[in-house]
């Protein structure tokens, strides 16, 4: 790399302790990757804004929203799947899959998440299009930024910022619909009946979208986000990167210079288009760097120029450092499948799929009823007047189905024992009790088990739970009966 010779620094050009931001005004460009970015952006925004409005019929006892994180009732609904807090390992598994998925994507296609799918990228892209729509393309924006503040500029800025704010509000506003019934909440929101936390959430997210997407933009990627830093440790010579083929491009020279001096210059005509279109304002010709989110817009720009000047495309191209070196040596290209599927990617793919398959397996085999028993510790047992001994238990019957179910609790063991609940009389005690467990609820019971005495021996026994409808299902919990003996 060319570096300036060591020279004494002029006192007037001292760098301050804090670096001024160099605002980025990316130029509009069209091309393969730009269109891919459009498509992914449209998809991501459609998913974000559309998902809460999809309806999904679950019968009369559960909400009909396809994706709903019901914090108040501790339920997570996702199409046919309903997750209880006890099953949070599914969510943990999904998060681990998301984490490993990021590694997988990074290993296979480099920083594709940063370049295409990251919300910061998507919304920054959206806001940059608003800039172009209101202020014009790069040059007009540059002129306006340098222009003194006058009524026209103020009006234009206020107009633009109000559009920013509208987008930010829609973004922040959509978030809350994932946490409550969307149509109901929307009505409540506009009529002032929604919970305070809903307004606060919308307020905070509107502000962060407005600020991070409208003003901070590439600074989030370069200074704030930890992910680029982690990725710099994950990228190697086998990673797909946006690479400037310096051996082909250097030395740079304009078309005119090249005409005057045929053979003296490389393919790069130093048109600076790659810098002009970059949404993070970097120069890819300096090599790969943390500011490069690999959105590939510079590839679009460069390909277009190469076509105009009659050079082959791909002076800036998606390639690995290994392949770039091979190309420099004049070796043929490897097939894309070989580049994508190197051993590290396959290992990540294996781990990712194993977790996914494990979750699917567990999802298919989970039991939708559950019994839990907690024995009273204080008092451990109660002596009764006829010499019998009684133990108390907190028993919970969990019905995870979206309909009420009749269930039967019975004692297994302790042949001389009977049980009753705190809503029954001791005289009604029996070995088997039936309960109507409401839909999608946990039914807590205080169960008193009495073993006839004198001479009650106690010991281990089990509570058995059995659903009495045709779907059936059962659960058993082993516990203990304490006596003074």
């Amino acid at each position, binding site marked *: 790399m060319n570096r300036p010779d060591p020279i004494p620094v002029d006192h007037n050009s001292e760098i301050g302790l804090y670096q001024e931001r160099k605002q980025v005004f990316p130029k509009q460009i069209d091309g393969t990757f730009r269109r891919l970015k459009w498509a992914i952006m449209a998809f991501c925004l459609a998913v974000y804004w559309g998902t809460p409005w999809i309806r999904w019929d679950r019968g009369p006892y559960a909400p009909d929203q396809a994706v709903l994180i019901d914090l108040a009732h501790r339920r997570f609904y996702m199409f046919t799947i309903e997750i209880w807090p006890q099953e949070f390992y599914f969510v943990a598994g999904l998060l681990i899959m998301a984490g490993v998925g990021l590694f997988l994507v990074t290993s296979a296609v480099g920083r594709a998440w940063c370049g295409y799918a990251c919300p910061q990228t998507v919304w920054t892209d959206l806001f940059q299009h608003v800039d172009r729509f209101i202020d014009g393309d790069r040059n007009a924006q540059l002129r306006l930024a340098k222009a003194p503040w006058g009524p026209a500029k103020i009006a234009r800025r206020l107009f633009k910022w109000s559009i920013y704010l509208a987008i930010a509000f829609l973004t922040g506003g959509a978030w809350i619909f994932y946490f409550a019934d969307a149509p109901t909440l929307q009505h409540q929101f506009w009529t002032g009946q929604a919970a305070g936390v809903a307004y606060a959430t919308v307020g905070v997210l509107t502000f962060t979208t407005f600020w991070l997407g409208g003003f901070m933009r590439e600074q989030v990627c370069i*200074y704030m986000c930890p992910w680029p830093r982690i990725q710099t440790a994950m990228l190697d010579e086998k990673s797909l990167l946006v690479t400037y083929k310096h051996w082909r491009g250097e030395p740079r020279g304009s078309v005119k210079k090249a005409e005057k001096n045929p053979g003296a210059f490389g393919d790069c005509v130093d048109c600076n288009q790659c810098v002009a279109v970059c949404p993070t304002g970097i120069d890819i010709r300096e090599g790969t760097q943390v500011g490069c989110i690999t959105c590939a817009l510079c590839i679009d720009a460069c390909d277009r120029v190469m076509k105009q000047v009659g050079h082959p495309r791909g002076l800036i191209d998606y390639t690995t450092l290994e392949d770039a070196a091979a190309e420099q040596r004049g070796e043929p290209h490897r097939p894309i499948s070989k580049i994508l599927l190197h051993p590290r990617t396959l290992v990540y793919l294996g781990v990712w799929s194993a977790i996914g398959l494990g979750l699917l397996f567990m999802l298919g085999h989970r039991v939708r009823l559950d019994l839990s028993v907690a024995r009273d510790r204080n008092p451990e047992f109660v*002596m009764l007047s006829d010499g019998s001994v009684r133990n108390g238990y907190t028993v919970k019957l969990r019905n995870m189905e979206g309909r009420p179910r009749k269930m039967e609790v019975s004692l297994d063991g302790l042949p001389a024992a009977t049980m009753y609940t705190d809503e029954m009389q001791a005289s009604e005690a029996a070995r088997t009790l039936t309960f109507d467990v409401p839909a999608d609820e946990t039914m807590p019971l205080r169960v008193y088990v009495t073993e006839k005495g004198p001479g009650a021996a106690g010991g281990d026994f089990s509570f058995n739970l059995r659903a009495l409808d045709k779907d059936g299902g059962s659960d058993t919990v082993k516990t203990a009966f304490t006596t003074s003996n």
Partner: protein
Amino acid sequence: MANKRIDEATGTETMGHEWDGIEELNTPLPKWWLYTFYACIAFAIGYVIVYPAIPMIHGATPGIWGWTSRGQLDQEMKKEQAERAPILAAIAKTPLDQLVTDEKLNRQAIEGGAAAFKVNCVQCHGAGAQGSVGYPNLNDDDWLWGGTIDDIAFTITHGVRQAADPESRMSQMPSFGKDGILTPDQVGQVVSYVRTISNQDKPSASSQAGAAIFAANCAVCHGADGKGSQAVGAPNLTDGIWLYGGSVAALTNTVTNAHYGQMPNWGARLDPVTIKMLAAYVFSRGGGKAAAPAAAPSGTGTGTPAQ
């Protein structure tokens, strides 16, 4: 600062100081970082103005919003009380015998009673209501003064042996030994008899002698069969539950000296709703007796015997 120069390897300006050949590069922080810092300072100044912040000799500066943690707690308590008010009102106007059949209200009353029990009752009756020597176990099915929910509420309201409350539960067993009503031998004989009717000892000559003494001195309150009387608070002497112990030594002590346990008349200290909730809680501990005729519990979720 003549030492300032552009570093050859990185192209970055140095800070200008040098020690032993080591120089520092000037890699400046972004400006927004500085502005964020200024914003924090502005926030801190605002915070100091509106909230208590600066420590003084007595307390801290009050802050113009007048916020205190105590005031916040007070507000939260008021809010809680307001939310609880309709439940308490419903409990207040529901008679006790109907309360136990109203599943939801009864559940709320039991929860409220459990909380009040922890504050007022655990000191004697224990955290699990299991009692100890001299303090009745409220979980079992043996009741000195009756185990229906109305009996329990009455006992809580008026207490035991409270002179200040004319309706207080009163019973006074004579100190047969101390007061010289019975000789130590006779006490021993009556203790033998009591241990046979409670199936702890086989009949003996001593217990046969004690039977006559029992009939003459004890049957008035404890009944001819020794099963006691809840009307006068005389314990059942034939069951397996002893308030002061069923051993020879414990029984001898009881007959010789008698015990007069007390319980406050909580009606003078607690409001009627709290007492109702306490009664519901104690009643739910497993030993509650249905008032005759017993109303069969019904409703969703109520267990019913299946066989």
